[in-house]
Protein backbone atom coordinates (compact mmCIF):
# COMPACT_ATOMS: atom_id res chain seq x y z
CA UNK A 1 0.00 0.00 0.00
CA UNK A 2 3.01 2.28 0.32
CA UNK A 3 3.64 2.15 -3.37
CA UNK A 4 3.56 5.47 -5.13
CA UNK A 5 2.74 5.03 -8.80
CA UNK A 6 3.30 7.75 -11.39
CA UNK A 7 0.20 8.99 -13.15
CA UNK A 8 -0.43 11.65 -15.79
CA UNK A 9 -3.02 14.33 -15.09
CA UNK A 10 -5.70 14.17 -17.80
CA UNK A 11 -7.99 16.93 -16.60
CA UNK A 12 -8.70 18.98 -13.51
CA UNK A 13 -12.33 17.92 -13.27
CA UNK A 14 -13.41 19.89 -10.18
CA UNK A 15 -11.01 22.71 -9.28
CA UNK A 16 -13.09 23.86 -6.28
CA UNK A 17 -12.80 20.43 -4.68
CA UNK A 18 -9.30 19.73 -5.99
CA UNK A 19 -10.33 16.68 -7.99
CA UNK A 20 -8.53 15.56 -11.12
CA UNK A 21 -8.74 12.72 -13.59
CA UNK A 22 -5.43 10.89 -13.79
CA UNK A 23 -4.13 8.15 -16.05
CA UNK A 24 -2.13 5.42 -14.31
CA UNK A 25 -0.86 2.77 -16.72
CA UNK A 26 -3.88 3.27 -18.98
CA UNK A 27 -6.46 3.22 -16.18
CA UNK A 28 -8.23 6.56 -15.66
CA UNK A 29 -9.68 7.44 -12.27
CA UNK A 30 -10.41 10.50 -10.18
CA UNK A 31 -7.89 11.48 -7.52
CA UNK A 32 -7.49 14.38 -5.11
CA UNK A 33 -4.79 16.97 -5.83
CA UNK A 34 -5.47 18.88 -2.63
CA UNK A 35 -2.07 18.02 -1.17
CA UNK A 36 -0.54 19.96 -4.07
CA UNK A 37 -2.84 22.96 -3.74
CA UNK A 38 0.12 25.31 -3.36
CA UNK A 39 1.60 24.11 -6.64
CA UNK A 40 -1.36 22.76 -8.59
CA UNK A 41 -0.56 20.32 -11.38
CA UNK A 42 -1.94 20.91 -14.87
CA UNK A 43 -3.06 18.51 -17.59
CA UNK A 44 -0.12 16.42 -18.85
CA UNK A 45 1.85 16.92 -15.63
CA UNK A 46 3.08 13.75 -13.94
CA UNK A 47 2.39 13.13 -10.27
CA UNK A 48 3.13 10.37 -7.79
CA UNK A 49 -0.21 8.77 -6.84
CA UNK A 50 -0.73 7.15 -3.43
CA UNK A 51 -4.12 5.94 -2.07
CA UNK A 52 -6.04 8.30 -4.34
CA UNK A 53 -3.92 11.40 -3.75
CA UNK A 54 -1.24 13.16 -5.77
CA UNK A 55 1.74 13.29 -3.40
CA UNK A 56 4.36 15.10 -5.45
CA UNK A 57 4.94 16.37 -8.96
CA UNK A 58 7.58 14.49 -10.87
CA UNK A 59 9.15 15.07 -14.27
CA UNK A 60 8.25 12.96 -17.23
CA UNK A 61 11.51 11.03 -17.47
CA UNK A 62 11.42 10.19 -13.77
CA UNK A 63 7.80 9.09 -14.19
CA UNK A 64 8.57 6.75 -17.07
CA UNK A 65 11.60 5.23 -15.37
CA UNK A 66 9.70 4.78 -12.10
CA UNK A 67 6.78 3.16 -13.91
CA UNK A 68 9.15 0.72 -15.59
CA UNK A 69 10.76 -0.08 -12.24
CA UNK A 70 7.44 -0.43 -10.43
CA UNK A 71 6.08 -2.67 -13.17
CA UNK A 72 8.95 -5.07 -12.44
CA UNK A 73 7.64 -5.56 -8.92
CA UNK A 74 5.11 -7.99 -10.40
CA UNK A 75 2.11 -8.71 -8.20
CA UNK A 76 2.70 -5.68 -5.95
CA UNK A 77 2.23 -3.58 -9.10
CA UNK A 78 -0.75 -5.42 -10.56
CA UNK A 79 -2.49 -5.43 -7.16
CA UNK A 80 -1.98 -1.68 -6.89
CA UNK A 81 -3.40 -1.05 -10.39
CA UNK A 82 -6.31 -3.35 -9.63
CA UNK A 83 -7.03 -1.45 -6.41
CA UNK A 84 -6.75 1.86 -8.27
CA UNK A 85 -9.14 0.52 -10.88
CA UNK A 86 -11.69 -0.24 -8.13
CA UNK A 87 -11.66 3.35 -6.89
CA UNK A 88 -15.02 5.14 -6.96
CA UNK A 89 -14.01 8.66 -5.97
CA UNK A 90 -16.06 11.23 -7.81
Amino acid at each position, binding site marked *: *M*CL*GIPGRIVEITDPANHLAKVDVSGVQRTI*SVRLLEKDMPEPDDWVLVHVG*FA*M*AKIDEEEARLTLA*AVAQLGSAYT*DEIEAFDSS*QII
Partner: protein
Amino acid sequence: MRFVDEFRDPAAARALLATIRRLADESGEHHKFMEVCGGHTHTIYRHGIEHLLPESVELVHGPGCPVCVIPMGRVDDAVWLAEQPDVVFTCFGDMMRVPGSRGSLLDAKARGADVRFVYSPLDALKIAVDNPAKQVVFFAIGFETTAPSTAVTLVRARELGVENFSVFCNHVTIVPPIKAILDSPDLRLSGFLGPGHVSTVVGTRPYQFVPKVYGKPLVVAGFEPLDILASVAMLLTQLREGRCEVENQYSRVVAEEGNPAALSLMGQVFALRPHFEWRGLGFISQSALRLHDDFAAFDAEARFDMPGVRVADPKACQCGEVLKGVLKPWECKVFGTACTPETPIGTCMVSPEGACAAYYNFGRMHRDAAQLVGQPAR
Protein backbone atom coordinates in the same frame (compact mmCIF):
# COMPACT_ATOMS: atom_id res chain seq x y z
CA MET B 1 26.62 -10.33 -11.18
CA ARG B 2 23.68 -11.95 -12.90
CA PHE B 3 21.10 -9.81 -11.14
CA VAL B 4 22.55 -6.63 -12.55
CA ASP B 5 20.76 -7.45 -15.81
CA GLU B 6 17.47 -6.39 -14.30
CA PHE B 7 18.72 -2.94 -13.46
CA ARG B 8 17.75 -0.07 -15.60
CA ASP B 9 21.37 0.80 -16.36
CA PRO B 10 23.74 -2.12 -15.82
CA ALA B 11 26.83 0.03 -16.46
CA ALA B 12 25.82 2.49 -13.77
CA ALA B 13 25.06 -0.37 -11.39
CA ARG B 14 28.47 -1.89 -12.01
CA ALA B 15 30.20 1.44 -11.43
CA LEU B 16 28.31 1.94 -8.15
CA LEU B 17 29.13 -1.58 -7.01
CA ALA B 18 32.80 -0.98 -7.75
CA THR B 19 32.70 2.21 -5.68
CA ILE B 20 30.93 0.39 -2.84
CA ARG B 21 33.48 -2.41 -2.93
CA ARG B 22 36.42 0.00 -2.88
CA LEU B 23 35.00 2.03 0.01
CA ALA B 24 34.17 -1.13 1.95
CA ASP B 25 37.69 -2.50 1.45
CA GLU B 26 39.29 0.78 2.49
CA SER B 27 37.13 0.95 5.59
CA GLY B 28 37.95 -2.60 6.66
CA GLU B 29 35.03 -2.56 9.08
CA HIS B 30 31.71 -4.39 9.01
CA HIS B 31 28.86 -1.99 8.31
CA LYS B 32 25.19 -2.55 9.04
CA PHE B 33 22.86 -0.07 7.37
CA MET B 34 19.17 -0.13 8.20
CA GLU B 35 16.65 0.47 5.44
CA VAL B 36 13.78 1.97 7.41
CA CYS B 37 11.12 1.63 4.74
CA GLY B 38 9.33 -1.54 3.68
CA GLY B 39 9.36 -0.33 0.07
CA HIS B 40 13.15 -0.51 0.17
CA THR B 41 13.04 -3.99 1.69
CA HIS B 42 10.84 -5.09 -1.20
CA THR B 43 13.26 -3.68 -3.82
CA ILE B 44 16.28 -5.17 -2.06
CA TYR B 45 14.85 -8.69 -2.04
CA ARG B 46 13.18 -8.37 -5.42
CA HIS B 47 16.52 -7.59 -7.06
CA GLY B 48 18.81 -9.64 -4.84
CA ILE B 49 20.73 -6.50 -3.94
CA GLU B 50 22.06 -7.86 -0.67
CA HIS B 51 24.00 -10.48 -2.61
CA LEU B 52 25.64 -7.90 -4.83
CA LEU B 53 27.10 -6.02 -1.87
CA PRO B 54 30.45 -6.97 -0.37
CA GLU B 55 30.24 -9.20 2.68
CA SER B 56 31.23 -6.36 4.97
CA VAL B 57 28.17 -4.29 3.98
CA GLU B 58 24.96 -5.65 5.44
CA LEU B 59 21.45 -4.28 5.00
CA VAL B 60 19.04 -4.81 7.90
CA HIS B 61 15.32 -4.16 7.80
CA GLY B 62 13.59 -1.55 9.83
CA PRO B 63 10.14 -0.81 11.18
CA GLY B 64 8.81 1.15 8.19
CA CYS B 65 6.08 -1.19 6.95
CA PRO B 66 2.77 0.29 8.16
CA VAL B 67 0.87 -2.99 8.17
CA CYS B 68 3.65 -4.75 10.08
CA VAL B 69 3.70 -2.43 13.09
CA ILE B 70 0.00 -2.67 14.00
CA PRO B 71 -0.29 -4.63 17.25
CA MET B 72 -2.74 -7.46 17.65
CA GLY B 73 -4.99 -5.52 20.06
CA ARG B 74 -5.74 -2.90 17.40
CA VAL B 75 -6.65 -5.64 14.90
CA ASP B 76 -9.01 -7.09 17.51
CA ASP B 77 -10.56 -3.64 17.96
CA ALA B 78 -11.01 -3.43 14.20
CA VAL B 79 -12.71 -6.83 14.13
CA TRP B 80 -14.95 -5.72 17.02
CA LEU B 81 -15.91 -2.55 15.14
CA ALA B 82 -16.61 -4.53 11.97
CA GLU B 83 -19.01 -6.78 13.88
CA GLN B 84 -21.14 -3.97 15.33
CA PRO B 85 -24.68 -3.74 13.93
CA ASP B 86 -25.13 -1.57 10.83
CA VAL B 87 -21.39 -0.94 10.46
CA VAL B 88 -19.62 -1.02 7.11
CA PHE B 89 -15.94 -1.42 7.96
CA THR B 90 -13.49 -0.25 5.31
CA CYS B 91 -9.74 -0.77 5.09
CA PHE B 92 -6.81 -1.12 2.70
CA GLY B 93 -6.55 -4.59 1.15
CA ASP B 94 -3.41 -5.56 3.09
CA MET B 95 -5.13 -5.08 6.44
CA MET B 96 -7.83 -7.67 5.66
CA ARG B 97 -5.51 -10.61 6.23
CA VAL B 98 -3.67 -9.47 9.37
CA PRO B 99 -4.45 -12.02 12.06
CA GLY B 100 -6.05 -10.89 15.30
CA SER B 101 -6.73 -13.14 18.26
CA ARG B 102 -10.24 -13.83 16.90
CA GLY B 103 -9.07 -14.14 13.33
CA SER B 104 -8.63 -11.48 10.68
CA LEU B 105 -11.05 -8.99 9.16
CA LEU B 106 -11.44 -11.46 6.32
CA ASP B 107 -12.63 -14.03 8.88
CA ALA B 108 -15.04 -11.46 10.30
CA LYS B 109 -16.35 -10.92 6.77
CA ALA B 110 -16.84 -14.68 6.39
CA ARG B 111 -18.82 -14.60 9.65
CA GLY B 112 -21.14 -12.02 8.07
CA ALA B 113 -19.59 -8.65 8.90
CA ASP B 114 -19.70 -6.01 6.16
CA VAL B 115 -15.96 -5.50 5.60
CA ARG B 116 -14.92 -3.83 2.36
CA PHE B 117 -11.50 -3.09 1.02
CA VAL B 118 -10.98 0.39 -0.40
CA TYR B 119 -8.20 1.89 -2.48
CA SER B 120 -8.49 5.30 -0.85
CA PRO B 121 -10.03 6.82 2.30
CA LEU B 122 -12.06 8.95 -0.14
CA ASP B 123 -13.65 5.72 -1.38
CA ALA B 124 -14.70 4.99 2.20
CA LEU B 125 -16.25 8.45 2.44
CA LYS B 126 -18.12 7.78 -0.81
CA ILE B 127 -19.55 4.57 0.68
CA ALA B 128 -20.78 6.63 3.66
CA VAL B 129 -22.46 9.17 1.37
CA ASP B 130 -24.13 6.36 -0.58
CA ASN B 131 -25.31 4.49 2.55
CA PRO B 132 -26.77 7.06 4.94
CA ALA B 133 -28.42 4.36 7.05
CA LYS B 134 -25.07 2.70 7.80
CA GLN B 135 -22.17 3.67 10.01
CA VAL B 136 -19.07 3.63 7.78
CA VAL B 137 -15.74 3.27 9.60
CA PHE B 138 -12.34 3.63 7.91
CA PHE B 139 -9.38 1.76 9.40
CA ALA B 140 -6.66 4.38 8.97
CA ILE B 141 -3.10 3.07 9.08
CA GLY B 142 0.23 4.30 7.79
CA PHE B 143 3.03 6.76 8.37
CA GLU B 144 3.15 10.38 7.24
CA THR B 145 2.88 9.14 3.65
CA THR B 146 -0.73 8.16 4.18
CA ALA B 147 -1.85 10.34 7.11
CA PRO B 148 -2.37 13.47 4.92
CA SER B 149 -4.83 11.49 2.78
CA THR B 150 -6.88 10.67 5.87
CA ALA B 151 -6.65 14.34 6.88
CA VAL B 152 -8.03 15.57 3.54
CA THR B 153 -10.78 12.95 3.71
CA LEU B 154 -11.87 14.19 7.14
CA VAL B 155 -11.82 17.83 6.04
CA ARG B 156 -13.95 16.79 3.08
CA ALA B 157 -16.32 14.81 5.32
CA ARG B 158 -16.82 17.91 7.44
CA GLU B 159 -17.37 20.12 4.38
CA LEU B 160 -20.00 17.69 3.12
CA GLY B 161 -21.54 17.27 6.57
CA VAL B 162 -21.33 13.47 6.42
CA GLU B 163 -22.48 12.25 9.80
CA ASN B 164 -22.26 8.51 9.37
CA PHE B 165 -18.51 8.43 8.70
CA SER B 166 -15.76 7.87 11.24
CA VAL B 167 -12.07 6.95 11.29
CA PHE B 168 -10.36 4.36 13.48
CA CYS B 169 -7.07 6.19 13.58
CA ASN B 170 -3.84 4.20 13.77
CA HIS B 171 -1.49 6.58 12.01
CA VAL B 172 2.07 6.48 13.24
CA THR B 173 5.05 8.76 12.80
CA ILE B 174 8.44 7.80 11.46
CA VAL B 175 10.89 9.51 13.81
CA PRO B 176 10.06 7.82 17.19
CA PRO B 177 10.69 4.24 16.02
CA ILE B 178 14.03 5.28 14.48
CA LYS B 179 14.90 6.80 17.83
CA ALA B 180 13.72 3.67 19.67
CA ILE B 181 15.97 1.56 17.48
CA LEU B 182 18.94 3.86 18.06
CA ASP B 183 18.31 3.66 21.81
CA SER B 184 18.02 -0.12 21.81
CA PRO B 185 21.21 -1.99 22.74
CA ASP B 186 20.42 -4.89 20.38
CA LEU B 187 21.83 -3.45 17.24
CA ARG B 188 24.91 -1.55 16.23
CA LEU B 189 24.17 0.35 13.07
CA SER B 190 26.56 2.39 10.92
CA GLY B 191 23.82 4.42 9.27
CA PHE B 192 20.37 4.54 7.71
CA LEU B 193 18.73 4.50 4.33
CA GLY B 194 15.97 7.01 5.04
CA PRO B 195 12.44 6.41 3.77
CA GLY B 196 11.54 7.92 0.41
CA HIS B 197 7.81 8.55 0.25
CA VAL B 198 7.39 9.50 3.91
CA SER B 199 9.98 12.16 3.20
CA THR B 200 7.94 13.66 0.35
CA VAL B 201 5.67 14.78 3.22
CA VAL B 202 8.01 15.41 6.17
CA GLY B 203 11.08 16.49 4.18
CA THR B 204 14.61 15.78 5.34
CA ARG B 205 14.85 17.99 8.44
CA PRO B 206 13.15 15.66 10.97
CA TYR B 207 16.08 13.25 10.55
CA GLN B 208 18.71 15.76 11.68
CA PHE B 209 18.79 14.21 15.15
CA VAL B 210 20.24 11.00 13.69
CA PRO B 211 23.63 12.58 12.88
CA LYS B 212 23.41 15.33 15.51
CA VAL B 213 22.42 13.26 18.55
CA TYR B 214 23.43 9.75 17.57
CA GLY B 215 26.36 10.43 15.25
CA LYS B 216 25.05 8.26 12.38
CA PRO B 217 24.65 9.28 8.75
CA LEU B 218 21.28 9.01 7.03
CA VAL B 219 20.61 9.11 3.29
CA VAL B 220 17.02 9.53 2.07
CA ALA B 221 16.80 6.95 -0.72
CA GLY B 222 14.63 6.30 -3.77
CA PHE B 223 13.06 2.93 -4.55
CA GLU B 224 14.86 1.69 -7.59
CA PRO B 225 17.80 -0.69 -7.36
CA LEU B 226 20.19 2.03 -8.51
CA ASP B 227 18.82 4.39 -5.83
CA ILE B 228 19.62 1.82 -3.15
CA LEU B 229 23.14 1.27 -4.46
CA ALA B 230 23.77 5.00 -4.82
CA SER B 231 22.56 5.59 -1.27
CA VAL B 232 24.78 2.83 0.14
CA ALA B 233 27.72 4.43 -1.70
CA MET B 234 26.79 7.83 -0.22
CA LEU B 235 26.69 6.39 3.31
CA LEU B 236 30.09 4.73 2.86
CA THR B 237 31.50 7.96 1.41
CA GLN B 238 30.34 9.93 4.43
CA LEU B 239 31.92 7.41 6.78
CA ARG B 240 35.11 7.43 4.72
CA GLU B 241 35.32 11.23 4.78
CA GLY B 242 34.47 11.41 8.46
CA ARG B 243 31.25 13.28 7.69
CA CYS B 244 27.95 12.56 9.35
CA GLU B 245 24.94 14.22 7.77
CA VAL B 246 21.46 13.85 6.39
CA GLU B 247 21.76 13.62 2.61
CA ASN B 248 19.01 13.38 0.02
CA GLN B 249 19.63 10.90 -2.75
CA TYR B 250 15.95 11.11 -3.81
CA SER B 251 15.93 14.87 -4.42
CA ARG B 252 14.14 14.37 -7.73
CA VAL B 253 11.01 13.64 -5.69
CA VAL B 254 11.74 14.69 -2.10
CA ALA B 255 12.01 18.41 -1.31
CA GLU B 256 14.01 19.37 1.75
CA GLU B 257 11.01 21.07 3.34
CA GLY B 258 8.65 18.23 2.43
CA ASN B 259 5.07 19.07 1.52
CA PRO B 260 3.95 22.09 3.62
CA ALA B 261 0.30 21.78 2.53
CA ALA B 262 0.20 18.16 3.72
CA LEU B 263 1.94 19.01 6.99
CA SER B 264 -0.45 21.84 7.77
CA LEU B 265 -3.50 19.68 7.01
CA MET B 266 -2.13 17.01 9.33
CA GLY B 267 -1.64 19.66 12.00
CA GLN B 268 -5.30 20.66 11.73
CA VAL B 269 -6.75 17.17 11.82
CA PHE B 270 -4.46 15.17 14.12
CA ALA B 271 -2.93 15.47 17.57
CA LEU B 272 -0.10 13.39 19.02
CA ARG B 273 -1.05 10.50 21.29
CA PRO B 274 0.97 10.37 24.49
CA HIS B 275 1.98 6.81 23.66
CA PHE B 276 1.06 4.03 21.26
CA GLU B 277 1.80 0.35 21.11
CA TRP B 278 3.86 -0.96 18.19
CA ARG B 279 3.99 -4.59 17.24
CA GLY B 280 7.10 -6.12 18.76
CA LEU B 281 8.49 -2.74 19.82
CA GLY B 282 6.16 -2.11 22.75
CA PHE B 283 4.85 1.32 23.72
CA ILE B 284 6.64 4.27 22.17
CA SER B 285 5.78 7.73 23.46
CA GLN B 286 4.46 10.41 21.10
CA SER B 287 4.72 8.01 18.19
CA ALA B 288 1.17 8.03 16.84
CA LEU B 289 -1.70 10.30 15.90
CA ARG B 290 -5.26 10.55 17.11
CA LEU B 291 -7.96 12.84 15.75
CA HIS B 292 -7.77 16.41 16.98
CA ASP B 293 -10.61 17.45 19.30
CA ASP B 294 -12.05 19.57 16.46
CA PHE B 295 -12.65 16.34 14.58
CA ALA B 296 -13.84 14.29 17.58
CA ALA B 297 -17.21 13.79 15.88
CA PHE B 298 -15.44 11.61 13.30
CA ASP B 299 -13.41 9.60 15.80
CA ALA B 300 -14.49 5.94 15.86
CA GLU B 301 -12.82 5.52 19.24
CA ALA B 302 -15.20 8.16 20.65
CA ARG B 303 -18.27 7.13 18.67
CA PHE B 304 -18.15 3.44 19.61
CA ASP B 305 -17.66 1.99 23.04
CA MET B 306 -14.62 0.00 21.98
CA PRO B 307 -13.17 -2.63 24.28
CA GLY B 308 -9.60 -1.50 23.50
CA VAL B 309 -8.02 -4.51 25.14
CA ARG B 310 -4.30 -5.04 24.95
CA VAL B 311 -3.42 -8.44 23.55
CA ALA B 312 0.04 -9.98 23.62
CA ASP B 313 1.49 -10.84 20.21
CA PRO B 314 1.41 -14.56 19.40
CA LYS B 315 4.23 -16.45 21.12
CA ALA B 316 5.64 -18.01 17.99
CA CYS B 317 5.86 -14.64 16.30
CA GLN B 318 9.22 -12.93 16.16
CA CYS B 319 8.08 -9.94 14.13
CA GLY B 320 9.46 -7.59 16.79
CA GLU B 321 12.97 -8.87 16.21
CA VAL B 322 12.48 -8.69 12.44
CA LEU B 323 11.15 -5.11 12.68
CA LYS B 324 14.17 -4.08 14.73
CA GLY B 325 16.53 -5.71 12.24
CA VAL B 326 17.83 -8.09 14.91
CA LEU B 327 16.58 -11.22 13.13
CA LYS B 328 16.53 -11.96 9.42
CA PRO B 329 13.12 -13.29 8.30
CA TRP B 330 14.39 -16.82 7.70
CA GLU B 331 15.75 -16.96 11.23
CA CYS B 332 12.23 -16.87 12.70
CA LYS B 333 11.29 -20.36 13.84
CA VAL B 334 7.97 -20.44 12.01
CA PHE B 335 9.14 -18.73 8.80
CA GLY B 336 7.95 -20.55 5.70
CA THR B 337 6.52 -23.46 7.71
CA ALA B 338 3.67 -22.37 9.98
CA CYS B 339 3.92 -18.78 8.76
CA THR B 340 3.46 -18.16 5.03
CA PRO B 341 1.72 -15.42 3.02
CA GLU B 342 -1.34 -17.73 2.76
CA THR B 343 -1.45 -18.43 6.50
CA PRO B 344 0.40 -15.56 8.18
CA ILE B 345 1.07 -15.70 11.90
CA GLY B 346 2.78 -12.34 12.11
CA THR B 347 2.21 -9.08 10.30
CA CYS B 348 5.54 -9.08 8.43
CA MET B 349 4.24 -11.95 6.28
CA VAL B 350 1.10 -10.10 5.17
CA SER B 351 2.03 -6.94 3.35
CA PRO B 352 4.29 -7.14 0.27
CA GLU B 353 6.40 -4.53 2.06
CA GLY B 354 6.86 -6.79 5.08
CA ALA B 355 10.35 -8.25 5.30
CA CYS B 356 9.07 -11.82 5.72
CA ALA B 357 6.69 -11.65 2.76
CA ALA B 358 9.31 -9.97 0.55
CA TYR B 359 11.89 -12.56 1.52
CA TYR B 360 9.39 -15.42 1.11
CA ASN B 361 8.46 -14.26 -2.38
CA PHE B 362 11.86 -13.33 -3.75
CA GLY B 363 14.66 -13.72 -1.27
CA ARG B 364 15.03 -17.44 -1.14
CA MET B 365 15.41 -17.64 -4.89
CA HIS B 366 18.25 -15.14 -4.83
CA ARG B 367 19.82 -16.70 -1.78
CA ASP B 368 19.87 -20.12 -3.43
CA ALA B 369 21.23 -18.58 -6.60
CA ALA B 370 23.91 -16.73 -4.65
CA GLN B 371 24.96 -19.95 -2.97
CA LEU B 372 25.11 -21.64 -6.37
CA VAL B 373 27.46 -19.02 -7.73
CA GLY B 374 29.57 -19.36 -4.62
CA GLN B 375 28.68 -16.21 -2.75
CA PRO B 376 28.08 -16.68 0.95
CA ALA B 377 24.47 -16.33 1.96
CA ARG B 378 23.82 -13.73 4.58
